[in-house]
């Protein structure tokens, strides 16, 4: 039984990826280019050591977004507010980091904690609305994403918390001094963010929390059945609120790797769109810390190697279509597998009860 489950857990994502590869194959064929040579071009470009480094750096951000989404998913929460939470985290992390002068390690720690608090508090709005007001978290989070962007662009004004350096067009926060920066690891002519270790730690902590703690057990129980968890004494609304905040706190870390090791300041140039990516990665990785890592790597691999298609006359945006089809394929695969499992279980129960029936009669 467990072997069967592990097989499906791996088979479904692989099938989804193959399915979308087939889809892209057909599209490229229609375009009149050789799909296989395109794929091999992408692979050789993507696995070039220099590109690998930037892919790994991007993977860190995606991974954290994926874990944040996964925490929500465990509670059947659809945290589409990761975008806003990540912005809030990165922005306030940058503001606080640029405003104080502390000893090196403490400074970094302050930024990281600030980012988690900011992300968590922003998520708390949606959590409160869900628990106390019965507002669907999908809707409130979509609205909150837009509002976060607005609030930050307002706070970035030079008259508020931001600054407009000489000769620059975009407002940004004050740069974080050297004591608040994180070193990078030199590898393959590139620099890997040391925030990678934080991401790994988050992944491990997520796994331990979920599988080895009472909190994690309650979390999973509430996600599986709100009413059953409540009946067995779990304060389910509180669990929902805490999980939302936790998910937001992790989401607050998404941009911190870039902030501490690369840009050292927040500006509007920070990318958007992490919300859906996070959800997609959690789905693809089946909410498992290792699965999410592979999914995150696949995502950044696709994005970094896509521009090479440009030279062959294929618009690189095809990768976005591919990501979308991967997500759709994976959820469809899960749905189909779940239905097959359900049918098997029903059949098993049916045969058991069919055997049990005569015994009851003989009594």
């Amino acid at each position: 039984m467990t072997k069967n489950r592990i097989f499906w857990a791996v088979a479904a994502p692989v099938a989804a990826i193959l399915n979308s590869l087939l889809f892209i194959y057909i599209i490229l064929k229609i375009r009149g280019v050789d799909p296989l040579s395109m794929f091999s071009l992408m692979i050789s470009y993507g696995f070039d050591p220099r590109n690998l480094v930037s892919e790994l750096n991007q993977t860190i951000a995606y991974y954290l977004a994926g874990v944040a989404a996964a925490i929500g998913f465990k509670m059947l929460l659809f945290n589409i507010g990761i975008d806003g939470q990540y912005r809030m985290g990165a922005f306030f992390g940058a503001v606080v980091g640029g405003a104080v002068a502390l000893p090196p390690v403490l400074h970094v720690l302050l930024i990281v904690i600030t980012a988690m608090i900011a992300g968590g508090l922003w998520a708390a709005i949606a959590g409160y609305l869900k628990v106390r007001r019965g507002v669907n978290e999908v809707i409130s989070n979509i609205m909150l994403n837009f509002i976060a962007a607005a609030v930050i662009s307002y706070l970035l004004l030079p008259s508020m918390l931001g600054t407009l350096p000489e000769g620059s067009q975009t407002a940004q926060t004050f740069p974080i001094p050297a004591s608040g920066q994180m070193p990078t690891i030199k590898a393959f002519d590139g620099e890997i963010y040391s925030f990678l270790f934080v991401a790994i730690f988050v992944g491990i902590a997520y796994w331990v929390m979920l599988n080895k703690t009472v909190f994690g057990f309650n979390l999973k129980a509430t996600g599986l059945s709100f009413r059953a968890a409540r009946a067995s004494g779990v304060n389910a609304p509180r669990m929902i609120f805490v999980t939302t905040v936790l998910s937001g706190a992790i989401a607050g870390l998404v941009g911190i790797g870039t902030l501490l090791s690369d840009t050292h300041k927040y500006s509007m140039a920070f990318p958007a769109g992490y919300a859906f990516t996070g959800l997609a990665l959690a789905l693809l990785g089946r909410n498992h810390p290792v699965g999410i890592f592979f999914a995150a790597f696949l995502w950044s691999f696709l994005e970094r190697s896509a521009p090479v298609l440009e030279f062959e006359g294929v618009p690189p945006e095809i990768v976005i279509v591919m990501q979308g089809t991967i997500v759709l394929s994976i959820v469809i695969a899960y749905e189909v597998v779940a239905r097959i499992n359900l049918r098997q279980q029903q059949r098993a129960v049916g045969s058991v009860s069919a055997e049990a029936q005569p015994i009851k009669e003989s009594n």
Partner: protein
Amino acid sequence: MSTQSATPNKAEKAKSFFKSPARVTILIAIVFLVVSLVENITSAVDISSPGTSGATLRFAIPLLMAGLGGLWAERAGVINIGLEGMMIVGTWTAAWFGYLHGPWVGLLAAAIFGLLSGLFHAILTVKIGIDQAVSGLAINLIAAGAARYLSGIFFPAVGGDRTISPPVETLPTFTVPVLAPFFQGIDEKNIFLISNVSGLIYGLLTDLSVVTVGLLLFVPLTSWILWRSKFGLRMRFSGENPMAAESLGINVYMTRYIAISVSGMLASLGGAYLALVASSVYREGQTAGRGFIGLATVIFGNWRPGGVFAGSVLFGFTDALRVRQSDSVMAMIMAAGIVAGLLSLYYVLSRKWKPAAVSGGIALFALWMNLRVTNIPQEFITAFPNLATLIVLTFLAQRLTPPAMAGMPYRRGSE
């Protein structure tokens, strides 16, 4: 027993019927009075100038179509987060087919491809039964990616750009005869309040696109279908209680298929409007989150066509002001503050302390904004619809009446 329970019910109904439209009218009148007052004081002419009302309509239509699309889907019990993607489908197909075969064909193509994108969402959520939010988000992603991919292939070859289509012929516009000049005359006389109102009407009646009028008809049409037709009843039933509907012989799957396909078509037409009427090209990122604001208008309008219309006009109005003149926004905030202050006074007099505190707080906030902030960044005004929706959800969530089963998975024959 029956008379006892029926009488207050009837009375209540009559009361609420008389109360709500009258109230709304009075409120609108007050708002308008304040607007013209503020306008005279701050000399921010743009709030009620003919140009603004025309622009409001132009900005409102895409939101309205997205909102109606969301309404159709949610009334049938499925949340459509893919509205944004379906709008992108509309902008792209309208521009491309419009370029090839003229704008009318573009409009038709947008309707057809929108219908298909809606059908896609329906198959994924109804037939296969995947999560409605995941399906919608994936559609957004795929539509955005596909539009950019196809633009990169097709547009550079025909005089466009990787992100911009070649220009499309414009659709005919007209100015309503007799009425438009009449109101223009009054507007120019500069009579307090009356001129403001006629300026607004004049703006609505000039250079009106045929498409605008056609798309506006979807509001009464949706209303009629929802509340007066057999299909509308089935649709609402599918959204409120699909199990019971199924047990009464309603084909919930088929109903949802149709409703969601129409939803896609409406959103796509909203996109087509952006490409063909509001501008004359497809441009990357043209929809700019309007699908999500459409989703907001559904909540804002309490899942009713008229409410969706009101919401999209309000949000379109803020959009129009933002684009035209940001001074006007400050004047608008001031006007809103005054209205909130009056409302607070009213609540204090009728001893309703909680709403009094809320509206008083809003009034103070508006006052503070006026004193403290000289200019609001564009993004902040862009987020107004989102903020308004969140506030409505926060304070009025208990009074909203969404379809009971919207967003819930439903499988035929299971609980």
